[in-house]
């Protein structure tokens, strides 16, 4: 969009107006963002450009344009997370669904960051050579907890309204899971970068995190959103305690963080994801939360 100064400025007083070719594109509904946003804003305040638009556009397309302008003017200003998602190209309706995700609230993300900071500090205080056990043990639980916090009657205040809406429950669950998982894994990844002395061993949390999250979700279909992740989290801790008891040499990694353990985690993640897909209709029938 250029400064054309096509006559006396009746809107805004700056002398600037939307170029006629842009107004023609606007009238046809073909003007793309960000020019569209500029035109929308300017048209709201400029009678001159509205007059030009009325001359160049057909009435039906013009009505549609006004409707869009009306909707834009009335639209609420998106919050921090929603604005960020929109700037990343996420559709506005998906961004609104994600803005309502409990597992993406600042309070939760702050708690996750605090836990990671603590564990990284503990790990960094130990001499290199072993494994950052506390960090590797806790990091897989954080995405699991984040996803568990994002679905179900206990933690989602609008769950009851969401479950009777025509949007498939599984779709909503997956949208939220992908977002929470991406943020959770991102935070874990940043924490891993803070432990360069451990090399790739510090990434040993990744596959267990995927396995725990997928297993927790698959079991949620049968056991509900509280019991399932609690059992999975408890099982993970029991596994680590058992592995610790079975460890011969104190410098050896715990079994889940060995190559074989990582392979098992990958297999569990794939199997659980398959089971989750098979059970997807349970998230729609109002049964997933009943247990």
């Amino acid at each position: 969009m250029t400064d054309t100064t096509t006559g006396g400025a009746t809107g805004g007083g700056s002398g600037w107006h939307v170029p006629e070719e842009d107004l023609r594109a606007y009238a046809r509904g073909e003007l793309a963002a960000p020019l569209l946003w500029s035109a929308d804003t300017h048209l709201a305040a400029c009678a001159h450009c509205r007059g030009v638009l009325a001359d160049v556009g057909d009435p039906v397309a013009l009505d549609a344009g006004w409707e869009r302008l009306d909707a834009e003017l009335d639209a609420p200003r998106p919050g921090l997370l929603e604005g960020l998602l929109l700037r990343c190209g996420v559709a506005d309706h998906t961004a609104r669904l994600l803005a309502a995700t409990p597992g993406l609230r600042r309070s939760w993300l702050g708690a996750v960051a605090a836990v990671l900071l603590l564990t990284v500090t503990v790990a960094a205080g130990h001499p290199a050579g072993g494994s950052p056990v506390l960090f590797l043990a806790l990091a897989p639980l954080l995405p699991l907890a984040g996803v568990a916090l994002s679905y179900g009657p206990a933690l989602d205040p609008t769950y009851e309204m969401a479950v009777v809406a025509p949007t498939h429950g599984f779709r909503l669950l997956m949208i939220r899971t992908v977002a929470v998982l991406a943020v959770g894994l991102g935070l874990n990844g940043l924490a891993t970068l803070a432990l360069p002395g451990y090399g790739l061993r510090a990434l040993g949390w990744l596959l267990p995190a995927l396995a725990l999250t997928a297993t927790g979700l698959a079991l949620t279909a049968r056991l509900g959103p509280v019991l399932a992740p609690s059992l999975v989290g408890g099982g993970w801790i029991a596994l680590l305690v058992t592995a610790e008891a079975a460890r011969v040499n104190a410098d050896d990694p715990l079994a889940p963080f060995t190559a074989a353990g990582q392979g098992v985690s990958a297999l569990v993640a794939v199997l659980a994801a398959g089971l989750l897909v098979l059970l997807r209709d349970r998230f729609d029938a109002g049964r997933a939360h009943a247990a």
Partner: protein
Amino acid sequence: MTPTVSASGLSLRHGGTRALDDVSLRLSAGVTGLLGPNGAGKTTLLRVLATAVPADRGSFTVLGHDPGTSRGRQEVRRRLGYLPQTPGFHPDFTAFEFVDYVAILKELTDRAARHREVRRVLDEVGLGGVRGKRIRKLSGGMRQRVALAAALVGDPGFLVLDEPTVGLDPEQRMRFRELIAQAGEGRTVLLSTHQTEDVAMLCHRVVVLAGGTVRFDGTPAELTARAAGRVWSSTERDPGAKAGWRTGLGTFRNVGDPPAGADLLEPTLEDGYLLTLDGAGTEVAA
């Protein structure tokens, strides 16, 4: 006339409790009141009809669609408006954002059309002027109206309202009754309530539920008529009455089987309701 909702033999157990026991009913256009004491199964019935929870036995259709199948359930949900007993809100959302969120869940993804619909329903419940306000800053009555606006998104043919007037002051309750009456024009509304005045003022039909079973299904006038000749006045509480209380006039109003020569009073809907519950629970033994 084809009923909007047709339910047959609905049963559901919660643990060892039979929350619904062989409930059958047919609902058509207008406001139907669902009365019953605490634990009668009202909320359970509403949640089943709203497809929030499936029944163990029995079946029902909404506007000809069977929610027993995945496709049928989705069709029912497209035609449903639901205001739960305790509607939850995302604390940081404005009224507009919250209703917009529900509109997205109701598959309105086109931004302009969705925002137009959000404005329409907020105007309909009288909240057009506060649509930009955070929900946590709204009064309890306004929050209920936001939840009603969310239920009205998409102009549903079947509206399920679970005790929407609980906790509202008399003025707010009256305002809400106006909105429910307005919502009942041309669509089927099922209204669960403890307030017999709500039913008397709003409903063309009333269903009384107790112990998970239907105890009465008819018009408010028919429910009131159940107490004809069974309400009387006395200077002392009549020990033979099923319920009796001192009125503001200082005399006792008794409900039950009157003694000979009793000073009979005009019955109300509440009298008929109390007599219908007789034997169905403890509520009558007041």
